[in-house]
């Protein structure tokens, strides 16, 4: 599969989707001008990946900030990996938040109340 490597800007996140090396990572800030078009290739890639996934996938979120429109997309991404988890693939989501950023920690916890998926919370 092709590798997706999007360099982050002040309003869009860094995205790395690399099936061969098992890297699935989102970091930085997410408040794109057009959320749908920014994430369309990302969602499309993940949709393709789940057809022929690795036995094990570790997904990393290390976001500083995301707006409400992005929050919906993040849920969509997690749901794709939830499907894999339910099919018996080994999935681990690592949710990183800055030490004193309670809102970001809470946002992570909330996702894992909605999505049934193995996860770890990490402060940095």
């Amino acid at each position, binding site marked *: 599969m092709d590798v997706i490597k999007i360099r982050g800007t*002040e309003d869009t996140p860094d995205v790395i989707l690399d099936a061969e090396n098992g890297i699935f990572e989102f970091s930085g800030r997410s408040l794109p001008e057009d959320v749908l078009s920014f994430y369309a290739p990302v969602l499309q890639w993940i949709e393709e990946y789940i057809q022929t996934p690795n036995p094990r996938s570790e997904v990393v979120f290390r976001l500083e*900030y995301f707006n409400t429109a992005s929050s919906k997309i993040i849920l969509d991404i997690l749901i794709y990996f939830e499907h894999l988890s339910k099919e018996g693939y080994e999935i681990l989501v690592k949710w990183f938040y800055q030490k004193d950023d309670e809102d970001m920690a809470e946002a992570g916890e909330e996702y894992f109340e909605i999505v049934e998926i193995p996860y770890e919370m990490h402060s940095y």
Partner: protein
Amino acid sequence: MKKFDYKELIYSFHKEMLTNNFTLVYEGEITHQITKAFTSLTENKMDSYSEDATMKKKVFHVMVECLQNLSKHADDIRIFKDKGYSGNGIFIIGRVGPDNEDYHILTGNIIENSRVPELEAFLDKINELDKNGLKELYKKQMREGTLSEKGGAGLGLIDIARKTGEKLDYSFIEIDKKNSFYTLRTKISRKQ
């Protein structure tokens, strides 16, 4: 016709800004570029007050959602006979509280009267909920809502209420049979 006194107007705007502690007042089209410019302007300003990181993050968050709410109404530009015109929205940020320790964001935009009842019901619903209720509503909306073409997920107002811990202070002022002016004030206070 009365002669227009620019000097008086400039001076009175200046005084209004200072007495109300407004740091930024803008009326017009709200775009993504403007959202970025306003948030970075405000962040710089908060740095100059040595504002703490949590407060900065909260203000940034609420600002983005308020501005994006306005920008999603970008098609609401209307020109009113004899009543001047309104752009896409007015955006004001200022400091409040006895020691100016809190912030508030005031927005206003035109909305069709036909859309008022639905929005009002939604605002009231948010205001009735406690912390946990808002969390559940947010989760429900994330699961069940779909992103509109403009990227609206119906989450902004819920998020503002959650982040600020305050009720949404809104009003609708009827302009004419077709349109109203929708105002929203959100307060970001230090103590919660």
